[in-house]
């Protein structure tokens, strides 16, 4: 199949230019001001739209195996494609957890049936129980490059230290959900003025910040690499930035919801706004946006967490935490980066190139089963591309989702910017916003 993207704004790693992009047999074969359209090619006019490397999500809960009522690998991949993603990292907090080679292989095999590249994050500890190390080396041999007990963090500092010491020579990165559960106190929203007024038990910012601090010190001690998942407070981001400046091997992500929603959203007791770490203060939101623009954040990662509708209809404190992210993330990142003042280079950095680097999905990484992601949009690359139109105004709707679940907090929210085309592995997966 030959696809020609006509006259789009091609967004490279440091600059942009208006050009045509030709895709043939799974690769980008030509990027030039004007190209001759080969016979039989599908020509798509993308004038005014941004053409860049397909998005990469570092943080997707696909729920398979065990949670198929909420999402499957297949439905999650569809949601991702519509959101402009060409690759994603499946989180290991399935039932049972992805803590062994058989389960990891199962998810990789199922993922291979989808048009996208589905990478897997393995569990750090068996059953994600925080006690005994999972077979990290065996999973690394299957191509697993990220390990996490996400859902919760590794609570025991000694266990985390061992895991880091074990991971370092294997060249894999541990990703941490930073929340000290003893301080988080089984709370259901950010601790502060709002939670105190609403009578909801709070999860203090400190629960997150203490673990960020602890893990930075453990990185200093062990020389290993840590990726900080979904940072939600101003201080967390500041600590990670400082550690990075010191030369420690730390990376971090923020979730779209932490960039666009604050704790005030919980005032109506709608459990769709319940997430861990919780939605924080307006000041935190502003600080995260600032850090994102300043390049202190490696990735916007969705923490796409599908839940069956009846579970989100429970009382706020009884409902599970988590919200959908894949289908609205691009528009939300665009908003967080300033909408009309959004720098397209920065946008593709946090949506594609940064996360591809963290997940080690780039062309020069030691890929085992996947295509290359987060490229420069130049001839010879694997054709994982997305076209984003920053001019489209649309409205998020709970009833128009590819995901099996409906738990988006953005129902009826006006959005700006939408993915019109997703080309994954050279295949046209999404055309004019529609799945093919």
């Amino acid at each position, binding site marked *: 199949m030959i696809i020609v993207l006509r006259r789009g704004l091609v967004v490279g790693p440091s600059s942009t230019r208006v050009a045509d992009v030709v895709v043939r047999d799974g690769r980008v074969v030509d990027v030039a001001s004007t190209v001759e359209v080969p016979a039989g090619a599908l020509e798509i006019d993308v004038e005014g739209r941004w053409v860049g490397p397909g998005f990469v999500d570092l943080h997707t809960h696909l729920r398979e195996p065990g949670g198929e009522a909420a999402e499957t690998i297949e439905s999650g991949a569809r949601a991702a494609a519509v959101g402009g993603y060409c690759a994603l990292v499946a989180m290991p907090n399935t039932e049972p957890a992805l803590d062994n080679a058989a389960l990891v292989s199962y998810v990789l095999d199922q993922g291979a049936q989808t048009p996208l590249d589905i990478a897997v994050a393995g569990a750090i500890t068996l059953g994600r129980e925080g006690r005994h190390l999972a077979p990290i080396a065996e999973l690394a041999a299957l191509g697993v490059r990220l390990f996490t007990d996400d859902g919760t963090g590794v609570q025991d500092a000694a266990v985390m230290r061992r895991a880091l010491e074990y991971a370092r020579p294997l060249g894999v990165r541990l990703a941490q959900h930073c929340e000290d559960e003893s301080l988080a106190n089984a709370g259901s929203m950010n601790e*502060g003025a709002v939670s*105190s007024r609403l009578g*909801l038990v709070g999860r203090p910012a400190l629960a997150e910040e203490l673990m960020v601090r602890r893990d930075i010190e453990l990185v200093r001690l062990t020389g290993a690499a840590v990726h900080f998942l979904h940072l939600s407070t101003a201080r967390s981001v500041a600590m990670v930035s400082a550690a990075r400046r010191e030369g420690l091997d730390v990376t971090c992500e923020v979730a779209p919801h932490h960039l666009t929603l604050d704790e005030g959203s919980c005032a109506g*007791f709608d459990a769709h706004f319940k997430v861990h770490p919780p939605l924080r203060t307006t000041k935190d939101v502003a600080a995260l946006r600032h850090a994102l623009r300043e390049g202190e954040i490696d990735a916007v990662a969705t923490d796409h967490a599908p839940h069956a509708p009846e579970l989100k209809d429970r*009382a706020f404190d*009884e409902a599970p935490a988590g919200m959908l992210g894949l289908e609205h993330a691009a528009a939300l990142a665009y908003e967080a980066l300033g909408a009309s003042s959004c720098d397209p280079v920065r946008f593709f950095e946090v949506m594609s190139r940064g996360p591809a680097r963290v997940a080690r999905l780039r062309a020069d990484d030691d890929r085992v089963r996947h295509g290359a992601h987060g490229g420069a949009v130049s001839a010879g690359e694997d054709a994982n591309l997305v076209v984003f139109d920053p001019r489209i105004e649309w409205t998020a709707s709970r009833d128009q989702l590819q995901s099996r679940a409906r738990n988006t907090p953005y129902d009826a929210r006006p959005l700006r910017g939408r993915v019109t085309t997703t080309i994954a592995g050279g295949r046209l997966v999404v055309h004019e916003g529609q799945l093919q």
Partner: protein
Amino acid sequence: MDRDTDARVNQDHSIRGRNLLTLDTLSDRAILEVLDTAELFVEVNQRTIKKVPALKGRVVASLFYEESTRTRLSFETAAKRLSADVLSLAVASSSVKKGESLRDTIATIDALGIDAVVLRHQSSGAAHQVAGYVPHVRVINAGDGLHQHPTQGLLDAFTVRQVLAERAHARGSETGTELFEGLHVLIVGDIRHSRVARSDVAAFAALGAEVRVAAPGTLLPASLEGWPVEVVDDFDEGLQWADVVGVLRLQRERGTGSFVPSLAEFTRTHGLTVERARRLRPGAIVMHPGPMNRGVEIDSAVADLPVAVVERQVSNGVPIRMAVLYLSITGDPKETRS
């Protein structure tokens, strides 16, 4: 917090035709309307035939996920004295609780044709959620988690006004907010976990009282930002200041080392003991929402003193709840939109 300020700016000036989910957003006018209406129902409750046909043919469902015989009986009595039909579901002890979502349960009851639902739930915000599921039904919050217990706050304010009005030989409804202005109200005990405290603070502050709270450090809310209260570190100091002392119930499991070292130590620092009662200001009023842990937050002898208005609080529960049901069910929300 911006939203807190917003909540107070967007005040409701009446509960007519509206849900009663929280006292946080009610203006003094809205609260006085309930108190004044309740005063009329006090007269009805003194008749031989304690019943008026105001809600004849209306159906009030009482849905209690958390057992509370006192509050349930009080609401159901109120509904019956207004001639409403009462559908009583003690969910706490039925099979409904197991597995069925709040949305499904309320949909089932709604299908029977109801005008209002009185909801008690162990989770904060449950009443807000139900109000979203059945917008055509009036929802009365009878206590949700740690959040609010609006009718308790209203009946506490009503009781205080009643006592003060009697002393002044006035009719409460003729006094407006006058008796509350500058009144010193001290709320003591487990503020953090108390929906009664949240409703009392809102009611008394809206009516113009000065409100202070006294509690062990672990039993204060994580943040008091936006609360119209001052914290008193020394309960004894607060006692000498207070015209009204609202004693809160301490759940026994909180007094066994998790929040305070022991019940005995709580009594030592924050219990209303006989010794402390001697230091009450002349004319001070002592309240307790019940049921009391005699010997823990309040000494048995103090609870039986004339200054303690605990029984009055209980009997005022019925007229207050009649007023709330009457206003909420019969009122036209269009007339009262602020």
